[in-house]
């Protein structure tokens, strides 16, 4: 008898706890002095307990009374997308760019200032902006090209970067003759396959995205999209890639490249320092890892597209925007994160990283993609989604590799024709909306 009332209370309390646990009290600190705790979402599960802890300590030293907590997400893009549906996605986060189109930035993130103003100080501001307002600051940038094992390539007699696709494939053939696997696709992990899309703009220039949304057939000779996927197709169909792509392994690929078992991979310059670390761990010199621009040389020389990695943004629902802003400023300007990654610093006045010294000797032209026209930012993603061609993902490229290695029906022409058909049909649907 005496149990009943207290049981009822307990049940009610439990339900109340369930309902209320999402809410947290406290006054907002929008423009005051940095103070209190902020939560920072990050994708760097590898650094969160080491480098980032040191950053947090330094930040607290500069702004006493503040505390920075990190939440590292392994599947950052996927998890962050789901959390954006709630209001609980930390104070500072990385914009999950593959899911959130630019026109939605204002719904989730705090404006950081005008793009024009910010671009005087920071690189890559276009990418983190919508309609002239910046919502994100670049964490670091990198230039596209391919990492290769210098020892192997020198042994194969290649000491200058191939200027055309033919020369490049020829170089890979020579490498194959030395017994090394010339190219590694990273098919299984997938995301390294997605990064090759970063070469978009090498030939067509900085307005390539705008050109693509007006083009019914981007997979046509002379276009970047054709070059990027064509190079991959030709490499695989000539038998110049790993024999069984379905069992590749990214972490292992670093060691394979360092030891020379594999000789090259198309990646961003951010990968160079990771490959050098692997080389050092394998007892090789760091210099064994080289980085060259893509083999699409034009009259003006080699071109490399630079782009930013993820963007730091402040949650619109943050209760402590003052501290969040201070963290973004400090992380960008003072932490030295970009330099530690061997990457291009987001700060315009910072020097170029050592990892790109080959590029400097070759006089490579850097280009940064232009901002999409206002109102058209989401169009390229809309078309890609409608066509179910994951331009910035890996699924369609895995199918392309399957065809190239003879594991699926078709040839280069049929694959590209199918991609063009789907693209054109999706364009028509998206235009009609």
């Amino acid at each position, binding site marked *: 008898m005496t149990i009943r009332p207290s049981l009822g209370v307990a049940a009610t309390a439990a339900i109340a706890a369930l309902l209320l646990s999402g809410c947290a009290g406290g006054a907002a600190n929008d423009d005051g002095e940095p103070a209190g705790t902020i939560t920072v979402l990050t994708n760097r599960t590898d650094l969160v307990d080491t480098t980032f802890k040191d950053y947090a300590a330094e930040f607290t030293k500069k702004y006493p009374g503040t505390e920075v907590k990190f939440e590292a997400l392994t599947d950052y893009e996927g998890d962050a997308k789901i959390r954006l549906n709630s209001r609980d996605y930390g104070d500072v986060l990385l914009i999950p760019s593959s899911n959130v189109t630019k026109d939605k930035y204002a719904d989730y993130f705090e404006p950081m200032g005008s793009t024009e103003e910010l671009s005087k100080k920071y690189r890559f501001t276009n990418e983190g902006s919508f309609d002239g307002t910046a919502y994100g600051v670049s964490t670091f940038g990198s230039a596209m090209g391919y990492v290769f094992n210098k020892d192997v390539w020198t042994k194969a007699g290649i000491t200058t970067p191939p200027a055309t696709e033919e020369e490049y494939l020829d170089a890979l053939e020579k490498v194959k003759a030395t017994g090394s696997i010339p190219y590694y696709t990273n098919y299984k992990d997938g995301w390294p396959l997605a990064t090759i899309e970063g070469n978009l703009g090498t030939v067509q220039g900085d307005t390539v995205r705008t050109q693509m949304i007006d083009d019914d057939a981007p997979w046509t000779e002379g276009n970047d999209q054709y070059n990027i996927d064509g190079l991959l197709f030709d490499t695989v169909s000539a038998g110049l890639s790993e024999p069984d792509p379905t*069992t590749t392994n990214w972490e292992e690929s670093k060691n394979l490249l360092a030891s020379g078992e594999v000789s090259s991979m198309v990646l961003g310059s951010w990968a160079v320092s990771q490959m050098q670390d692997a080389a050092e761990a394998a007892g090789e010199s760091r210099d064994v890892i080289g980085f060259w621009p893509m083999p699409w040389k034009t009259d003006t020389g080699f071109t490399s597209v630079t782009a930013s990695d993820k963007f730091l943004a402040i949650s619109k629902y943050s209760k402590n925007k003052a501290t969040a802003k201070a963290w973004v400023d400090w992380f960008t300007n003072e932490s030295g994160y970009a330099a530690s990654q061997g990457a291009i610093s987001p700060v315009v006045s910072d020097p170029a990283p050592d990892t790109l010294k080959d590029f400097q000797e070759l006089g490579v032209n850097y280009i940064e993609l232009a901002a999409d026209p206002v109102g058209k930012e989401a169009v390229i993603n809309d078309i890609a*989604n409608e066509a179910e061609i994951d331009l910035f993902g890996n699924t369609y490229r*895995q199918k392309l590799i399957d065809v190239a290695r003879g594991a699926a029906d078709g040839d280069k022409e049929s694959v590209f024709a199918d991609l063009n058909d789907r693209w054109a049909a999706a364009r028509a649907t998206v235009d009609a909306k």
Partner: protein
Amino acid sequence: MSTLKGDPALTARALAPISSRRRNRLTGSGTTPWLFLIIPLAFLIVLTYIPVGNMFWYSLTSWDGLDPDMEFVGLGNFVRIFTQPEIFQVFFVSLYYLAGAIAQLVLALYFATLLSFKTRFRNLFKGVIFFPYLINGVAIGLVFLYFFRPGGTLDALLAAVGIHDPGQWLGDPSLVNISLAGTSVWRYMGLNFVLFLGAIQSVPAEQYEAADLDGANSWHKFRFIILPSIRRILGLSFILAIAGALSAFEMPYIMTGGANGSETFVIQTVNTAFKFSKVGLASAMAVVLLIIVLVITAVQRRVFPDERGEES
């Protein structure tokens, strides 16, 4: 109340003096079970029924997963599913898993029967067969990736018995689904095995003794004693196996991500929802899968009704 088992007269006598108080208690005990049930029911409703209800609603919209506005498109998504052949093509892959599931049931039944009789190292074998079911799916995926890779464990094993260059277990599109279905069989057989074993062991020993007296051999015992006794659990396992084959997801998703022609219907649904931001269409696909499973279950129950179990 259930604690007051035993002689009803005794119970009545014991309760008689406090019958007036008991009336109050009865009305009270009507709500008490519900209080206990509130939390599990709340979880069930919040985490199962509301999301499923939402899914039905999403399936009628062209929602992209983020947009605050959902555009109602009626049955457009369903029309699309049934008019785009490539969406249904992936059910072909399920046939591999269905074949695997049947092999799994047969093997599980075989081992369960064998190990329900006196066998040497019986408990060891039970453990060995059930163990894979306890391992986390991601771990199994990784282990089997190493097992299947060129020059990996399987190739080394085959080389030891003189078979060289057996082909790429995951790289060859004609082998990949067999390899993946095989992994699923290895993983889930233990569960069927334990279910069958439990059912077989509930058969009274006298029936076997009687059968022995009548001169039945092992096959007769299996056919006329074991099989009829476990037909309910067999029917259940069969439904689960078909549903599992149609909605195969975990093993192929971890091991190949659906690449190289190993894409199953659920992987396709997940990609549609989260890669191509078509949550509306993907919800419709999920609804279609749910309906297919319900239909198969209904057909199965019509063909093998389990009322027969009451004969015994």
